[in-house]
């Protein structure tokens, strides 16, 4: 150290420069290595996936358009029937939306309790916080399809298995997002209420909820968007709604493509519609909070 400072200014700068360049080089090396590993993973992963797929990527690439083209051309030929088909499948659409709405509501209520019980400072039983956190972790980790398939076996097909399955996952997912919000709540209101002798539920209802409600509603709306997609997908494995009708109409194959097209249109329209509506309300909710 002393040697360097004695040997004069120019050498000093050189030393700094050299060590800086060495650092930059090392950074570049690490960055390059990370990139290399990533590229290798992507390429080899792609090759493995390509190998294990029934049809190859390059063979299938030019066929991508075939099925949509078949569906669209047939739907276009029978375009006169399309409005009638859309009306026919409208009840299935309502069922899909209902599954999503109910499971979002139930999930939000469940997530609310799980998050309040699992947040430090708010929990009713502070010792049980890890327990409630693990419960919500597990509920979040279970893919909807697992519960749906098991419940379909017990309860038979229909909307109820999908509803329960999505609600369980939603409760876990929302509990995590909710508790991220409620960790940042101002505890003064809660303390103030506690000093008046308010019970736990009163403290939560009057002290915490008004603070977190905009964020909670915003997350719930986001979840509703996701759940519409999920309920359509679960329908495809037998849980009723639009997905179920889609599978049936696809099983018919050519000749019934107009039905598939009608369902595609309904599903696409619904998803886009609810995405737009919910993103507008979410923007308004989070903007209102800033003021």
């Amino acid at each position, binding site marked *: 150290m002393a040697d360097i400072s004695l040997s004069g200014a120019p050498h000093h700068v050189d030393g700094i420069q050299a060590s800086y360049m060495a650092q930059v080089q090392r950074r570049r090396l690490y960055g390059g290595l990370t990139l290399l590993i*990533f590229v290798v993973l992507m390429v080899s992963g792609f090759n*493995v996936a390509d190998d294990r797929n029934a049809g190859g990527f390059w063979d299938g690439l030019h066929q991508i358009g075939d*099925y949509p083209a078949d569906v669209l051309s047939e739907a276009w030929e029978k375009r006169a029937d399309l409005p009638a088909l859309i009306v026919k499948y409208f009840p299935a659409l309502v069922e899909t939306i209902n599954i999503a709405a109910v499971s979002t509501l139930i999930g939000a209520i469940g997530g609310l309790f799980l998050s309040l019980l699992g947040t430090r400072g708010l929990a009713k039983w502070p010792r049980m916080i890890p327990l409630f956190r693990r419960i919500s972790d597990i509920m979040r980790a*279970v893919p909807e*399809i697992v519960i749906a398939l098991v419940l379909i076996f017990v309860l038979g097909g229909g909307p109820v298995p999908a509803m329960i399955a999505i609600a369980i996952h939603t409760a876990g997912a929302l509990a995590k997002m909710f508790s991220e919000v409620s960790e940042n709540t101002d505890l003064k209101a809660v303390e103030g209420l506690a000093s008046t002798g308010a019970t736990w539920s009163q403290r939560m209802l009057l002290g915490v909820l008004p603070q977190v409600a905009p964020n909670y509603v915003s997350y719930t709306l986001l979840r509703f968007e996701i759940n519409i997609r999920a309920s359509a997908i679960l329908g495809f*494995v037998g849980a009723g709604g639009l997905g179920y009708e889609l599978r049936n109409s696809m099983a018919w194959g050519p000749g019934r493509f107009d039905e598939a097209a009608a369902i595609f249109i309904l599903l696409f329209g619904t998803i886009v519609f609810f995405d737009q509506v919910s993103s507008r309300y979410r923007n308004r909710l989070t903007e209102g909070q800033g003021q």
Partner: protein
Amino acid sequence: MTTIDLDATKFEAEKLFQRKRLIGFGIPSVIAVYFVYIFFAFDLPGLAGRANMENAVTLASDSWSHKVHVTRDNRSGEITYAVEGERKGRYPDGQRPDWVTGDDAIIIDLGREHIVRYLPDNRTEIEIPGFQLIEAQAEGRTVTTNLPDDLPDWISASDRRVGITTPEGRITLTGARTEVFNYFPGWELFWFTLDSPYYGQSLAKVLFGDQIDPARGNISGAVSDWWNNAMWRHKDVAWAIGETILMAFLGTMGAAIIALPLGFLAAKRFSPFMLVRAATRRLFDFVRGVDALIWTVVLARAFGPGPLTGALAILITDTGTFGKIFSEALENVDQKQIEGVASTGAKPLQRYRFGVIPQIVPVLLAQILYFLESNTRSATIIGAITGGGIGLMLTQAIQTQKDWEEVAYYIVLIIAMVMFMDWFSGWLRGKLIGRKD
């Protein structure tokens, strides 16, 4: 003046309170009415009738236990012993469970003095404490028994088929065959099938004991027999989980790579042409709106079932989602840093590289890693539709409606896989961009 002011304020306040009260009661009641509507729309009252409680019981008991079948083929008189009645779980010739004894008359001890005897000439005797000795004779396609007319509800009998269910096991008799199912807790043959020399050996003996199989070393032989276990298919399961994670990885990363340049095109600050911007945004909305379900269906037609199809479906859907998120992040970048880089004489590409990218990388990485975890779950579902990964194995196991212990095994693995990916993405996020707070 002041009184009027006060009155007006009071009036205002009361109106506000009234509105609050209306909301306070209104929203819960709307939700309650909606639940009532759903109660009938989903036909919950009829659900009890449709629900199959027998299935639930089978599911609950089979998921943690296994049964050993002792089957007598009444035509050939041959007796087989098999775990779960599967060919793969059959006891090799000359071996049988130790609760079966006797040579001419096979005596099956189900425990607690429940005894079944397979006698010559297709006769069967069943001893159940507290009930008469049941004698049955199979002939051609019929079964004749000495059962009385009024039967307890754990016996069902006709001249074609007799079924007896006891807490110790189940017995079915038909003309063609006589079967006894003996239930045991646990997942049988999870480590080794019966034809493996390592079956029934203790762990210590495999690790430190004498060589069991002369042809192979103990550890390598045991590992290979476990890996190739025909009942539990550990190798296939591992591959399936790998496929599912691969789908999520390829889909998420591919989507991020494609969405980044498109995000620039959709961001107001970097894309001066309104038309390009609007077109890119509509493209994002379109691929997001079509949804993974429809993409899966469409892509499965072109590429056939498999992990690649699932990966591409995730890739296309998430390109839309990432594009939207990235372009929003790009809109919010700080201009100062870009100006600073520009003031050093940086060219546009360098301005992006050093002025923009460092600002958005944390947001990007956080989103990508979050989606990697969430897509692991999606990949399970997509796999069930398009036919790849652990999702397919799960649906197949559920559809056969008998291998519930395998279903339970897959469910445990899926949950473990998702939790691992959750932990892993959180860990990676911590390493790459530091903790969130």
